[in-house]
């Protein structure tokens, strides 16, 4: 019997597989494909202080081995999320991680404080959204700001706090260390990489926002490298994400140092992907000689 359970601060999981923020909405749409209680956890779409419409369309474009998106944090605002979206998820036997975004330190604090009283199990702080003009990524590219936002959120929230790091930096370890010092309970790695596509017919960027965040298998090696680096220098559990499509990919993430993984844009290709990966994972772990998920974590470093 392969042990797939994972215990992370605030979240006790049946398996290490959860949908990534922004790729699963608030769960409702995917519940028509399978029982969400199967999931190790669920990370919901980002909440901001007020309702946001997001960017103009087109918001997505296909790339080689992936896609670009620039949604722009569209959401009903934290009060709307708590009142209208979260109640749907409570009956499922799956821990909920709420994603927190904002333009200012105050907004991060406000959203985190409200969500931490809502009944979710942990917070993921989005300091790495590349698709909004203000806030988001600047908090994730400057270690001092990353420290500050983590500190503020920790102050107002009783829940474990995972900081979602941006790969659009030269020194990912510096950022990870800064948020560790500020009291983060864990890391989510990685958000999307900034990219662009131009249509030769129109000679204009395809995405209305011009740039978008690159996701999909194209970014997996970047994520693996960053997790491998951070795992050696920082003593925080890591939720790994970026281009996962197979259980072999998951084992690669575990070996690099992730304790759990999130599935992002693969949910668009195959709405059943999380369920299928959960089903296949024990066999894959066994194939590579592991009796548990825990055994595989950090395996590339021994």
């Amino acid at each position: 019997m392969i042990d797939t359970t994972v215990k992370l601060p605030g979240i006790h999981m049946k398996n290490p597989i959860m949908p990534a923020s922004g790729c699963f909405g608030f769960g409702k749409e995917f519940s028509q494909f399978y029982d969400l209680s199967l999931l190790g956890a669920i990370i919901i779409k980002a909440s901001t202080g007020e309702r946001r419409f997001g960017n103009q369309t087109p918001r997505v474009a296909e790339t080689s081995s992936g896609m670009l998106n620039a949604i722009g944090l569209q959401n009903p605002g934290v009060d709307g999320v708590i009142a209208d979206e979260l109640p749907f998820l409570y009956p499922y036997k799956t821990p909920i991680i709420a994603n927190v975004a904002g333009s200012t330190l105050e907004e991060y604090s406000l959203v985190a404080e409200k969500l931490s009283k809502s009944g979710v199990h942990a917070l993921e702080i989005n300091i790495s959204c590349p698709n909004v003009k203000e806030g988001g990524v600047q908090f994730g590219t400057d270690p001092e700001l990353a420290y500050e936002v983590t500190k503020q959120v920790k102050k107002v929230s009783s829940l474990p706090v995972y900081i979602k790091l941006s790969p659009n930096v030269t020194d990912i370890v510096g950022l990870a260390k800064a948020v560790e010092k500020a009291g983060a309970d864990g890391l989510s790695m990685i958000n999307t990489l900034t990219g662009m596509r131009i249509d030769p017919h129109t000679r204009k960027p395809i995405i209305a926002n011009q740039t978008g965040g690159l996701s999909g298998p194209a970014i997996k090696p970047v994520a693996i490298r960053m997790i491998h680096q951070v795992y050696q220098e920082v003593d925080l559990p890591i939720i790994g994400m970026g281009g996962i499509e197979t259980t072999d990919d998951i084992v690669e993430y575990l070996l690099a140092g992730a304790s759990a993984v999130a599935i992002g844009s693969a949910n668009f290709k195959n709405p059943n992907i999380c369920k299928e990966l959960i089903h296949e994972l024990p066999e894959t772990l066994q194939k590579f000689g592991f009796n548990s998920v825990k055994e595989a974590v950090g395996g590339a470093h021994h």
Partner: protein
Amino acid sequence: MLREWMTIVTHQQIAHQTYLLELQGEIAGLVDNPGQFVHLQISEQYFLRRPVSIADVSPIKGTITLLYKVMGEGTEALTKKGAGEKIDVVGPGGKGFPMDEINSKKALLIGGGIGIPPLYYLAKELTAKGIEVVSVLGFRSENDLFYLEEFKSLGEVHITTNDGSVGTQGFVTDALPALDTIETYFTCGPTVMLKNVKEKLDGIPGYISIEERMGCGIGACFACVLETPGGCGKGYVKVCSDGPVFRPEEVIL
């Protein structure tokens, strides 16, 4: 909604860069209304699915018919798939034309280019309800024409082409019939066409079907949103799951 490997029953070119794809599978039995779509995975090489509207349903054969136009590499690769092969399909997606709500004597259907296909299934269903159908179909040129006979078998048809090679030269709005007896209109095509139609037919109850780049196609990713006038409702609608069919007054085009 299902994810299913459907079997290709027929796949043939019917006009310039335009193909007919008939697929067999359980999804065919799940279509509620004309105007819904399926989301096709062309191959592992193409990351995003392609939304294609349903042009016809055969309950007896258990098939759906799709008409698609080659728009780029993905749809070009799709043309290479042959009968007997399987294709990964999610669907049926979205809400179509609400057939139960429609109680007109005479309906006007206005389609532009690859927006025409869902109107064929709609025309069939409307005539089956005893509603008289007049169609205005716009194409780029004579080579692009498809389903003319099929529409003619259901009612009066007006054709326009951009170059005047067949029918009226110009756009669909240049060939509108007398509107006094029209009780409802239905339109699908490029956004600029929908805007013009909406303006010209202001005052007549209508339904518009909208095309947009999609991500997930099931309402989770917020790629295909449209703003609503005055921020009514949530301030937005999702084309893939709230639509693709809307009342013209519900959305800002």
